[in-house]
């Protein structure tokens, strides 16, 4: 029945050129009802999402300092030019990108390994999942303080153990937060410790969807374990890997708590979010802070776009 109707409408619209197919009264009514029901929520979404973005865009065109309101001046794109031509901005962007790349790669590898173990183990799976999730359930700022205190040479225990295990070769007064690379190592380690469980859970969901029969077929064909993973398992869970990578990359790019707590931006460990925070909150330079926030937002959009395109996954499924 529907096939006949579809063919008819198709033919009719073809006759009238590129005109859209006619919709029945019932469909039109349903659409109207849909708008009436979802409209208010849609409006609220626009207000809470787009209004702040638009307002930030507007403010970013001003030289505006809360403690110097008399000097407020419209400066067009001067704040963007200043930001983009400032070495500090690029240094912060570089550090942020470095942290993102390192943590993302390590977390993907570890997350996949943990997910595979959880996928194979049948009995204590629930318990294991709970244990694995513990670091993720800790508030970032709290875990940042824990790592800070653990690695501090005076209150921490790490230096003591490194000194003991290296038979005295490691200097117990080594200050991890005294240099750029040592600080970044601890920042990355704490990030990895905290968010690997999140990655592993997302990847586990993907692994669970891989068709067992395909793996068995590969085995029958004589494929090695690694070949099975690369040719069968990973391609089958591409969407899950993409979601995990996109979520984590965006999360990592907005990093704030760990470096803020551990170094406060000292020794060149400033990240982009910290720069935004300092301009907006500490200096009360609302204009410059907004411009930086907009730039951060654009970076996030670019990363999301590149990753989604790179993975070539159609997340809408077959609905379109």
């Amino acid at each position: 029945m529907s096939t006949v109707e579809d063919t008819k409408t198709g033919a009719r619209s073809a006759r009238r050129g590129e005109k859209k197919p006619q919709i029945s009264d019932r469909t039109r009514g349903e659409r109207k009802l849909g708008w009436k029901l979802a409209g208010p929520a849609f409006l609220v979404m626009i207000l809470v999402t787009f209004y702040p973005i638009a307002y930030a865009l507007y403010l970013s065109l001003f030289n505006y300092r809360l403690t110097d309101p008399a000097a407020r001046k419209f400066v067009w794109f001067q704040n963007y030019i200043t930001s983009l031509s400032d070495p500090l901005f690029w240094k912060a962007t570089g550090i942020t990108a470095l942290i993102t790349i390192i943590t993302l790669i390590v977390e993907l590898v570890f997350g996949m390994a943990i997910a595979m173990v959880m996928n194979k183990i049948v009995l204590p799976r629930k318990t294991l999942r709970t244990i694995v999730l513990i670091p993720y359930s800790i508030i970032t700022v709290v875990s940042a303080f824990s790592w800070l205190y653990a690695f501090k040479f005076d209150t921490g225990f790490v230096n003591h153990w490194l000194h003991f295990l290296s038979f005295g070769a490691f200097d117990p007064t080594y200050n991890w937060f005294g240099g750029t690379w040592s600080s970044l190592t601890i920042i990355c380690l704490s990030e990895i410790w905290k968010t690997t469980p999140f990655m592993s859970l997302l990847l586990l969901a993907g692994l669970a969807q891989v068709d067992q029969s395909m793996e068995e077929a590969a085995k029958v064909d004589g494929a090695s374990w690694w070949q099975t993973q690369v040719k069968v398992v990973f391609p089958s869970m591409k969407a899950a890997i993409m979601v995990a990578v996109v979520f984590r990359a965006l999360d990592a790019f907005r990093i704030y708590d760990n470096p803020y707590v551990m170094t406060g931006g000292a020794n060149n460990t400033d990240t982009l979010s910290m720069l935004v925070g300092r301009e907006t909150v500490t200096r009360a330079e609302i204009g410059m802070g907004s411009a930086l926030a907009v730039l951060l937002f654009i970076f996030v959009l670019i990363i999301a776009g590149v990753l989604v395109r790179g993975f070539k996954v159609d997340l809408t499924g077959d609905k379109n």
Partner: protein
Amino acid sequence: MRRHSSGRRGLALATAGVMLASLGLAACGSSSSASGTKALTWYINPDIGNTDPSKGGQASLAQICSKASGGKYNIKVQLLPNSASDQRIQLLRRLVANDSSMDLMSMDPAFVTEFASADLLAPVPASMDKEFKADRVDSAIKGATFDNKLIAVPFWANTQLLWYSKKVAKAAGLDISVNNPVTWAQVIDAAKKEKKQIGVQAKLYEGYSVWINALIAGAGGKIVDNPAATAVDTKLGINSPAGKDAAKIISTIANSGLGGPAMGSSDETAALALFQSKAAAFLVNWPYTYAALTGDKSDVGAAVYPRTVAGKDAAPPFGGIDLAVGKSSKSPEVAYQAAACITNEKNQAAYMAVAGNPASRKAAFTDPAVLKAFPNGIAATILKSLGTATPRPLSPYWGDISTGLQQQFSPPSSVNANTPVKAQKFITNVLKGKALL
């Protein structure tokens, strides 16, 4: 079914009744205008008692003054965050948002100027000007004055001293006394000779700027030449012989390991811990140090801040707390009356003796309770130090200048003769909106 619904209606009525009653009660508690008592909120910085009035901190002064006012006002305290920078951010956010509860604020003098120039504070009544300047140490009045006008009420007048181990100083042949001030070079030599460290504050925070300012001012320099100027016209004096003298001292202490392994992340607490651990024999820190030290204190000596250059008086850091009144306060006059009570002679002496934070009134330093809390001439040394104490530049842009300084002088081991030139160029660009901070 019917019984069920009537039960629900009853419950709803009861709930509504309770809500109405509580609203009424809340109204009574917040305004108290019926009885004529003004409700004042005082934002206090953490001290010995925090919000507990039984411990003798600012909360107890709030209680004492509320009682003494005879029902005129009732002060409720609100605790601010620990660090000076975080206190500034919270106060700034509330003041800009026209929060009417900003009746009284305990504020670092370094930020009072910024708030006053942004027109966020209620002016000090001319009639009370004389009262708020009475018996105060000069540095406290200087720290609360901008554009020749008193902009806040001097409350504490803090200054840093040189704390040292008498034994180590003696062994190193260093003669320190109130009448014989030493230089940084002498302290460095003594520490090197005795293989001891020096407790300083060089973390990326306000305390580091306090040290840099004291060193530059001690060499006769000024970080800001024209504090009342606008951001664009501000002239800096970091790139100067005084700036180079300061950089040399910081660099020597950092690169010889005298500042301890965590010098780049040390604040007042960390430096105090280093001194207490006996790894350090010298420490520059605020007077609360004496009360904070535990165990036998017979070896602890206190002297005036070290000189940057020989033959020139040191410029000890001036800190402390001023009391400011927010512009949107509903009762600024009553708030200033409360400030007068909080800073009267009796309360200043009592607060100094218990909380360990020096008073801005000179008379408090001879109070028997204060002399007991700061024995062995420490009270007199604090007063002497306050005589030459120098506040950080009273510029509305000090927040930016301070952050810029910290960034350019961090980590302390990277400080060299070029640091002052770089810092001056960078901060000038920041103030002109040409560089990010």
